[in-house]
């Protein structure tokens, strides 16, 4: 794109500092950030949690939470934002700056029709009639790629899928053809294939309108694919910026280098080269598993049945990592719940080491639980925040009456060593730990009863990439040391490629494709697997 020289940047941030009230002392989230975005330019702001990228974005829209302090200058379209009156600020928000939030499931008013939520922006800024705004909203929804926009506009948020909701939010953000759109992790809550489509729509619309975009993301791949310029933040400062090519291929700052090295890509996945999967003795055999839920029919009268897991068969060998990949609604998590017997299968067989698991009940089932342990996706939710780490790790042993109190304490200390945490964490509470440390505690707890199979349900999805890499290394190390088998559930093909021996791709409750990691990644049989592989962001930059 050519632009006339000496044009004013649409966003000009100078020496921005954002401070929050901490429990003991103020926390400075952003320290002296300078940032310019030219009209029509797409700039990606990349960083891990706590880097200050979201605080920077929120400061620009004026959405910092109460109790935060901001200094420095933010000029949008030549207007200094920090000294504006409330009324002027309201006039600029929505009209000059659009905002696309992170989590579409929480970002729409649940009690209002989605069409009206788009029309609201027009009503605020354009003084149009309700009727005119509504019909314009339908056009905007259509432009944002929402199918059946006239019908959808009359629906409520809970009747739409995550991707559709994000389209609604994009339509609302772009309704007044703003000069700048702030997109705060707009697709991190969505499936990869949906992510690609949503970002395509956003690209298309902003290009047509000449709108500049500040794309905040933790995903370097997304940044590389979508932005003309990448800005990397760490601990509140900008540490690097430049074109995607220069930043990603020849990063100057050590933090950026570390960030890039941690990203699991298909390239690194193959390069790591796990040993040839051997014909291992089967540990877990799932045969034609089915899980049906009663599903209220849309007519309200006829009750149909819904198969969350539909005729799924696989085996997991001793010492093997078996991965199930799929998008939301594919049935992968339900399969994990069937294997751990947190729910029972409607039909099918399940054996662990030759013993029937599907129909075991009561105390026998409880004893079986020792052999299969679970690591959850979100360590914030799966650990009691008020329990000490020692109590958390000891709890399974206590539940099964393993050893005496001093023995359990000693074992807890060993387990903490095993997951590479300092022993000092034993007396600390879960809420005092970082996300990565908490996930290590969750793994230590899962190992407490010396299980044979560890079911990991999205164990690294809630973690930053650098932490993700460390946890994956830990899991690989523990497997070699203890001869564990893993059932690894993930939506992220790149992560799966890095850790697993064999992969099953699930969709709509069925296994579409099952093979060694090598086979799935280099010669995918189904169109859907190819689609999943193509949707992984950053392929162009990283593999070229």
């Amino acid at each position, binding site marked *: 794109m050519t632009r006339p020289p000496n044009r004013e940047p649409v966003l000009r941030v100078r020496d921005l500092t954002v401070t929050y009230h901490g429990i003991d002392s103020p926390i400075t989230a952003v320290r002296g950030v300078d940032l310019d975005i030219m009209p029509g330019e797409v700039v990606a702001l990349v960083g891990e949690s706590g880097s200050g990228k979201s605080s920077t974005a929120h400061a620009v829209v004026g959405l910092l939470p109460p109790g935060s302090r901001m200094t420095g200058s933010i000029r949008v379209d030549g207007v200094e934002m920090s000294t504006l009156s409330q009324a002027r600020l309201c006039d600029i928000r929505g009209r000059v700056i659009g905002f696309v939030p992170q989590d579409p499931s*929480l970002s729409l008013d649940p009690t209002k029709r989605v069409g009206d939520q788009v029309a609201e922006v027009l009503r605020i800024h354009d003084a149009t009639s309700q009727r005119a705004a509504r019909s314009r909203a339908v056009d905007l929804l259509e432009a944002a790629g929402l199918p059946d926009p006239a019908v959808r506009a009359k629906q409520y948020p809970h009747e739409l899928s995550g991707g559709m909701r994000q389209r609604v939010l994009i339509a609302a953000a772009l309704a007044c053809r703003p000069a700048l759109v702030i997109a705060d992790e707009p697709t991190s809550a969505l499936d990869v294939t949906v992510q690609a489509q949503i970002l395509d729509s956003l690209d298309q619309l902003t290009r047509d309108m000449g709108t500049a975009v500040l794309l905040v993301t933790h995903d370097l791949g997304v940044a590389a694919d979508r932005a003309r310029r990448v800005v990397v933040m760490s601990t509140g400062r900008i540490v690097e910026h430049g074109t995607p090519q220069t930043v990603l291929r020849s990063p100057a700052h050590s933090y950026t280098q570390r960030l890039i090295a941690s990203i699991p890509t298909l390239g690194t996945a193959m390069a790591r080269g796990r040993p040839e999967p051997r014909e291992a003795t089967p540990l877990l055999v799932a045969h034609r598993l089915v899980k049906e839920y009663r599903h209220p029919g849309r007519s309200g009268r006829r009750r149909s049945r819904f198969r969350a897991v539909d005729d799924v068969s696989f085996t997991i060998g001793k010492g093997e990592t078996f991965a199930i990949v799929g998008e939301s609604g594919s049935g992968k998590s339900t399969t994990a719940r069937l294997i751990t017997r947190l729910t029972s299968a409607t039909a099918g067989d399940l054996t662990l080491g030759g013993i029937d698991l599907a129909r075991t009940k009561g105390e026998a089932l409880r004893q079986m639980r020792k052999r299969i342990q679970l690591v959850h996706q979100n360590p914030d939710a799966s650990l009691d925040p008020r329990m000490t780490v020692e109590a958390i790790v000891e709890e399974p042993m206590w539940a099964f009456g393993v050893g005496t109190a001093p023995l359990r304490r000693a074992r807890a200390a060993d387990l903490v060593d095993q997951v590479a945490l300092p022993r000092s964490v034993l007396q600390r509470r879960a809420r005092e730990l970082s996300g990565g440390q908490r996930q290590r505690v969750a793994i230590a707890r899962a190992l407490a009863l010396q299980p044979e199979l560890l079911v990991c349900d999205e164990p690294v999805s809630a973690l930053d990439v650098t932490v993700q890499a460390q946890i994956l290394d830990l899991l690989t190390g523990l497997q070699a040391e203890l001869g564990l088998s893993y059932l690894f559930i993930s939506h992220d093909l790149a992560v799966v490629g890095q850790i697993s021996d064999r992969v099953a791709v699930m969709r709509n409750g069925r296994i579409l494709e099952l093979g060694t990691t090598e086979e799935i990644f280099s010669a995918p049989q189904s169109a859907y697997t190819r689609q999943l592989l193509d949707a992984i962001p950053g392929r162009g930059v990283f593999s070229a």
Partner: protein
Amino acid sequence: MIWYLLQRVLQAVFVVWAAYTLTFTVLFMLPSDPVAIMLGTASGGETTGIDPAQIAALRAEYGFDQPVIVQYLTMLGDALRGDFGQSILTGARVAERIATELPHTLALGGLALVLAVTLGFTVGMLSIYPRKRVVRSALTALPPLGIAVPSFWLGILLIQQVSFGWGLLPATGNEGFASLVLPALTMAVPTGAILAQVFAASLRVTLAEPYIDVVRAKGASRARIFYGHAIRNATLPTMTLVGLLVGNLVGGAAIAETIFGRSGIGRLTVQAVSNQDIPMVQGVVMLAAVTTVTVTLLVDLIYPLIDPRVRTRAAAQ
């Protein structure tokens, strides 16, 4: 939707039946003898000196000589037909007595509820909405005060000041709207205070929701954020509480009617309980149960109108 309705109604019927049975059981287990009460031996203890034949006749007349289960079923059957028997003290029909007293209490309770809801929502809203921190803090302190103040004390205070001090409103009696105001206010303060507290907390939670940020980013004014989005969403949890608090108002009526010397269900209850007038107590308890259940049912029916998610779930059932 029909199934949703049916389910709610069945639940309501079950609760009323359970309340009836529980009251019957508790009253049956009381150590006093109803026949003795009827015969005027105050505590219902000694019946010596009264003709045993007379006692037996009374027992037979009221069915007290029957096995418990028969008594229960007979009374339940009568109750279903709206017949709660007669007061063992005055011999008046329970249903008729309740019917005469009910309008007074309905007027009082209705006004109290309107005041409580108005007060609760206004104070709750004003403790969040104003930009001035002082105003918010002051209004946030009000509800705990309202809950802490005992209502009989508040009632007496109002009589002292408003009636005797300023001579504005009557202190006692059943005549006209003016006599309703003070007792209704006495009942409304604690109820309204609870509502205010819950509504304010609910507003605070709602305002921290990501969708409010999105509305703010659209350029919405503070008023639009509140009236267009926050209030409706914050009303949902508060609605459920309104249903529950109506039950409380029945208890409040007992206090208010006693202090302000009004006739009504509250007064009737106090008399019935202190005289161990079992059928009368049973009748009043049933009235309270039916009222609470009906209001809760109404809340359940209003819920889908406010929250489309409940509507979808209801339609699916």
